[in-house]
């Protein structure tokens, strides 16, 4: 299916008017309206389209050139757009972010790739003290259209620093926008919307969802960058999650349905700001809310959402808002990660507790 995407990408170049100037222009082949793609290919297509549409978009990161990134998300883009649009940088995350800030001041729209979740921290200072505040510091005089892509999360059996979920650090930082798609369609569109944003966007890519294919509709996104979305309708209990957790919640909902329990699943999509509309509407309907995440629970997205739902849906709730999280430990050795990461069964255990009230 990747061939479809390649056809899609060259649509404007394929019109050769030079060889036959007298004849009517040959119409460009219509881009496909949809394709079934793994998330890596959907992201690749999103980057290619953004770079084609806007020459100020450029990519920066480690090994993103001829290699195409360690997850191949940028595969082929270096060959297509060249050295000045796809920058294989020296190995220094603070510099990747810091020079991206300078490039954004100059009018570029850099998209930085951080190789793995656990490697973002050398760039953390530039992200939090500089990128997030540049617009405020300049009293609105400049925009900071920088996207930082971070593959994150567990389930891939890898070594330390390669399986983490650091999103709360960024969601806690004013001036940043933080999002995470859970599927290929959202990955394509949310990345394009993030690149189009004049604010810095931290773009968390759930790496355990990189490879399953999903239908991408190229005609329209269907939702905005910061909209949360009900992805399964139910009546008994609301479960909220983002990124790879969404597929875990959907699996849990399948199992629960066999037991006669109807779970409504909300895909958070945006971690900052959080779109509470669908969450509160669902809470009003079910009276029971569970927030699930791979990240450690203490001072997390789940804590924040649980507190807000408790404040705003107080009279609708039949049970306290429950959280299902990774434990408050460093991410463990991969051999025991299945005990650390919330599984469908861990979700269902919380569902049982919520329903017992």
């Amino acid at each position, binding site marked *: 299916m990747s061939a479809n995407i390649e056809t899609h990408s060259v649509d404007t170049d394929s019109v050769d008017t030079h060889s036959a100037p007298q004849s009517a222009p040959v119409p460009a082949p219509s881009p496909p309206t949809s394709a079934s793609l793994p998330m890596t290919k959907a992201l690749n297509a999103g980057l290619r389209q953004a770079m084609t549409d806007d020459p100020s978009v450029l990519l920066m990161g480690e090994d993103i050139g001829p290699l195409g990134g360690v997850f191949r998300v940028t595969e082929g883009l270096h060959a297509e757009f060249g050295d000045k649009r796809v920058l294989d940088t020296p190995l220094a995350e603070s510099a990747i972010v810091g020079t991206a800030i300078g*490039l954004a001041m100059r009018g570029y729209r850099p998209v930085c790739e951080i190789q793995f979740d656990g490697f973002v921290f050398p760039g953390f*200072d530039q992200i939090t003290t500089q990128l997030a505040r540049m617009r405020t510091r300049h009293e609105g005089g400049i925009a900071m259209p920088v996207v930082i892509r971070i593959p994150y999360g567990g389930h891939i059996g890898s070594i330390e620093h390669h399986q983490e979920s650091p999103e709360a650090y960024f969601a806690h930082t004013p001036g940043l926008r933080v999002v995470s798609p859970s599927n290929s369609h959202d990955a394509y569109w949310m990345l394009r919307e993030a690149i189009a944003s004049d604010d810095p966007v931290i773009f968390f890519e759930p790496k355990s969802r990189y490879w399953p294919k999903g239908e991408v509709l190229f005609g329209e996104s269907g939702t905005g960058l910061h909209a949360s979305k009900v992805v399964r309708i139910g009546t008994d209990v609301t479960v909220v999650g983002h990124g790879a957790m969404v597929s875990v919640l959907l699996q849990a909902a399948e199992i629960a349905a066999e037991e006669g329990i109807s779970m409504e699943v909300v895909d958070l999509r945006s971690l*900052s700001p959080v779109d509470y509309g669908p969450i509160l509407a669902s809470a009003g309907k079910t009276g029971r809310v569970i927030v699930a995440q791979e990240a450690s629970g203490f001072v997390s997205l789940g804590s924040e959402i649980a507190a807000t739902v408790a404040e705003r849906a107080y009279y609708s709730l039949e049970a306290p808002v429950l959280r299902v999280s990774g434990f408050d430990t460093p991410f463990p050795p991969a051999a025991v990660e299945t005990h650390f990461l919330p599984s469908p069964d861990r979700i269902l255990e919380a569902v049982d507790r919520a329903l017992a009230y």
Partner: protein
Amino acid sequence: MTPNSAVTPDTAVTANTVQFLAADGSFAPNDAAAQFAPYLERLGEDDYRRFYRDMVVVRRFDTEAANLQRQGQLALWVPSHGQEAAQVGSAYATRPQDHIFPSYREHVVGMIRGVDMVDILRVLRGVTQGGWTPAEHGNFHLYSFVLASQTLHSTGYAMGMQFDGTTATGNPETDEAVIVYYGDGASSQGDANEALVFAASYQTPQVFFLQNNHWAISVPVSRQSRSPLYLRAGGYGMPGTQIDGNDVLASYAVTAKSMDDARAGRGPSLIEALTYRVGAHTTADDPTKYRDADDLAYWVARDPIVRLRTNLEGRGASQEFFDGIDEEAADFAADVRRRALDIRSPDRSVIFDNVYAEPHPLIDEQRAWLDRYEASFEGGEA
């Protein structure tokens, strides 16, 4: 007496240090200065006098700002006393199209590039975190209080010049370059290292202007580096030059060459300007607690303003000229003082105004809440 002295064989002026004006004010270029001498031919008598005028004015301004801080008008002041020659010489070596990324002590560079000094005071008074619009003030970018953070921004900006094709075209009237200021303390930061790596890798049109003022608050430069800082440039594969930073001519000539090279596509370079922070790090600091009086006296005897004045006297500048500059400096300071006292606090809406470029529900909600809260008090603001 404290054990800390910043004067060591490694950090004082040596034969390798570019110097045109000796400490006694005589024009006595050393061997290291020879290759930079042609750049002084760009200067006329008016330029020398302008250098002197700016150095005197900013020192007077500095005193006024410190006074304003003592009187409660500023939260903090960051004196530049002692570093005027390094800053004035390098600033005049830039062209209008160049971009300047300061640290936070380069007041006179801002003045030369067109920043209203009261705007700098507004930052230190705590009514703004920016103060001016770089694009409208000589491309003098905002102060950066996280040490060395600006080195990376400047390198990224210089990469953008390359991608835009606005540098290295062969036209010195339009070719652009970047100069970034940082210090001996900041040179220890990872960001300074990463900026130098990226600059060398992409061959950015950029000059790293390191003011070695010998003290990072209370820690001497000998703690930051065992070897002279300009030698680090070689490790990155770029030229490094040490100058007598209290010699305005050395600062001008070496920066002029380095910026010319940068604009012409010959890549980045590093200048280490040996100078001295005569004053405190900030008004919150007491240098007598950590540094030796002899150390200070050594550098005060090498004062950049006295040195240029002696030189100008030898070139025939009259007492009237110097008196006129003193009067101008006093007027400048009085004007700054008058306008500083008129600085008004911003409306509370600045808390929310520019956090995001695009609508953000949490910000909008909290802004509305604060408005309602304030309005809930009798006579509260709507």
